[in-house]
């Protein structure tokens, strides 16, 4: 079923005519903002999905995904193309998520009633309604909720592995490249993460 934000299906001929990521990166470096816009359109869903599974909520996920693209935009000069663009932005997304988690742990929570200082006035902080969007409703089945909840309770280093392998379909080699870790470490972390998930879901295993 089509989801909000989906791009219309492309034909093979259309795909063949699309410039590859490196060409778009080169055009962006030369000042062509429409080229970067194409990169955003091409990868925003995958990047947002990674962020969503890491963060566990759409608000933080959008924040992390947006920051990831901005960091990529500002760092294109240093991208050598050793790994794919998607692997590179996955690594940046993961790092931004981990940094945000560190900051959140080190910072007290803000009150909903706190006033936000603006230019010449103050307004009450506003928060997004977290009611699921229509496209997310189908995903919110019992098993999906249980899994997402359990994944969200994993330690960060395990959560990153689980999301990249299972949700993003990355290979061990790709995860190792994105995380900057040896493949053996990735495999052992994933194994421990699955066993931890089993413990977290021990009362709900009948769902699977």
């Amino acid at each position, binding site marked *: 079923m089509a*989801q*909000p*934000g*989906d791009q219309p299906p492309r034909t093979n001929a259309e795909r063949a005519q699309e410039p590859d990521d490196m060409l778009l990166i080169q055009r962006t470096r030369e000042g062509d*903002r*429409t080229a970067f*816009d194409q990169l*955003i*359109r091409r990868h*925003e*869903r*995958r*990047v*947002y*999905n990674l962020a*969503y*599974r890491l963060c566990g909520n*759409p*608000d933080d996920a*959008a*924040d992390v*995904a*947006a*920051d990831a*693209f*901005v960091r990529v*935009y*500002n760092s294109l000069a240093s991208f050598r193309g050793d790994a794919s663009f998607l692997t590179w932005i996955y690594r940046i997304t993961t790092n931004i998520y981990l940094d945000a988690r560190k900051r959140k742990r080190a910072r007290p929570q803000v009150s909903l009633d706190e006033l936000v200082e*603006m*230019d*010449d*006035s103050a307004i009450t902080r*506003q*928060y*997004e*309604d977290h009611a699921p*969007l229509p*496209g*997310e409703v*189908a*995903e919110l089945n019992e098993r*999906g909720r249980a*899994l*997402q909840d359990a994944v969200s309770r994993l330690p960060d280093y395990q959560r990153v592995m*689980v999301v990249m392998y*299972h*949700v993003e*379909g990355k290979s061990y080699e790709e995860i190792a490249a994105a995380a900057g870790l040896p493949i053996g470490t990735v*495999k*052992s972390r*994933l*194994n421990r993460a*699955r*066993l931890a*998930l*089993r413990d977290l*879901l021990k009362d709900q*295993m009948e*769902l*699977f």
Partner: protein
Amino acid sequence: MKCDRALELVSAYCEGGLGVALSVPFEAHLAGCDGCRAAADDVARLHRGLSALPLVSAPDALRVEIWRRIDVAERPAVPARRFVWRLGPARIAVAAAGAALIVALAGRTVLPGAFRSAGWSHWLTGGQTARLQPQASGVPFAAGAISLQTDKAGVTLSVPVTNTSKSPVVFSASVAQGDGDDAPTVTVPPGMSAVLSASVADGSNATRLNVRWKQGPVTGVAEYSPRR
């Protein structure tokens, strides 16, 4: 093989990644260990469940928000007090319109003789008009120059907007002290244009021109305050 070692290998076994040298003793261990056999079964089911989690869609406004942040980072010199952006209820849909507008001052305006209004009189009598000029990057509308019409009651400011997106956009404009939420709205279909108008009465304390837009759950507010 002991349980600790078997549990280390359980994922590799579920993925078919154990060689014969390890799979034979591993399976022999499972045959005699209910706990490890249950663990292998559970991990295999979790493996399938995790890999079946669907891709969620990115919010429509994500791209707009990305460009807003890029634009903000690239234009640190824009004085904040002249162009203020507020967050709408949907946080990721921050006032994207603001990111797409550049104010450039030019031209002259002739005012009614005794016009007095906080801020605006200085701006107007200073002989300035403001131009809202859109940039590219996924904003749902384009805005033209602010034009002025004067009469005995005061000044009316008008801003032409064109919906450049594929969904209707609801606009309103007001000149007010605060947000001006009660301003009348106009819904502009995709590809269509409208002129938003707001009035400054003689003696008004209004200090801002607010241009609000809403597209589905996404809202944004562009505020323009005249130079004092």
